[in-house]
């Protein structure tokens, strides 16, 4: 004889997946929005601080010059002599013809190094150039 209780409680328990889906959706949307922001090198630099900022493009290509002289295009470290070639390849991609190239250099670097980098950026065909800065806390103009 089959026990009475077996017919009342099913043997398979359902897991509530709603919170998992909620969190996953939020993560996906956030990553989609912040993807252009986080595509930059992890070379440690101390950006110069400013009170002003220019109107910024959502799509940009960053070029980083680290304290130790290392150079990176977006998040790829490139040999110092290959910056122009690496950037040129990046600028040739569809939609990047008139893209803003942001030069990220350490505040303590001598201007000579930055000037040489700008020359290479220009030789690569960059039409619009900006210097990356960090907003001073509590000041926004």
């Amino acid at each position, binding site marked *: 004889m089959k026990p009475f209780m077996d017919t009342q409680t099913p043997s398979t328990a359902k897991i509530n997946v*709603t*919170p998992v889906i*909620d*969190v996953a959706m*939020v*993560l996906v949307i*956030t990553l989609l929005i*912040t993807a252009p*922001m*986080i595509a930059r090198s992890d070379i440690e630099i101390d*950006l*110069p*601080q*400013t*009170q*002003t*900022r*220019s*109107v*910024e493009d959502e799509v940009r290509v960053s070029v980083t010059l680290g304290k130790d002289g290392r150079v990176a295009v977006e998040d790829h470290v490139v040999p110092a002599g290959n910056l122009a070639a690496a950037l040129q390849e990046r600028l040739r991609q569809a939609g990047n013809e008139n893209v*803003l190239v*942001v030069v990220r*250099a*350490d*505040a*303590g*670097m*001598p*201007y*000579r*190094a*930055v*000037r040489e980098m*700008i*020359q290479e950026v*220009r030789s690569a065909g960059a*039409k*619009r*150039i*900006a*210097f*990356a*800065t*960090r*907003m001073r806390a509590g000041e926004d*103009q």
Partner: protein
Amino acid sequence: MFVMKKQQRETSGLYEVNVTPLVDVSLTLVCILLLSSPLAFESSITVKKSAISTAVVEQRTDADRIELRLVSVDSVLVNETTVARGELRQALVPLLEASTSRLVVVGCDDAVSHGAFVDALDHAKIAGALEIAVVGR
């Protein structure tokens, strides 16, 4: 009759809203904001290409032409007049008010730090420069 009253008593209690999904999403957002806040504070100052800017500047009158050159961390040449970097903004305001184009051409000596150079660009923008061009040597 008695059965109906008992059922009403059992179902008329306070209902609890399931806040677990809300808390999950909120905590995820807080974690993302904490991690991405250093990135959000990064901004930039756009500059014009020096080759074009220099050509344009040469065609303008002397009153229109504002040239900065950082010769050291502490001193700046503003139209060939030496000004302390701390007083750069005050020196630029009357010049920019007299200028119709509000274009400032900035140069910098090789030994000066990049931080001091960007600070000069920042002062020029605060003083009212509409466009900033960077020249090489």
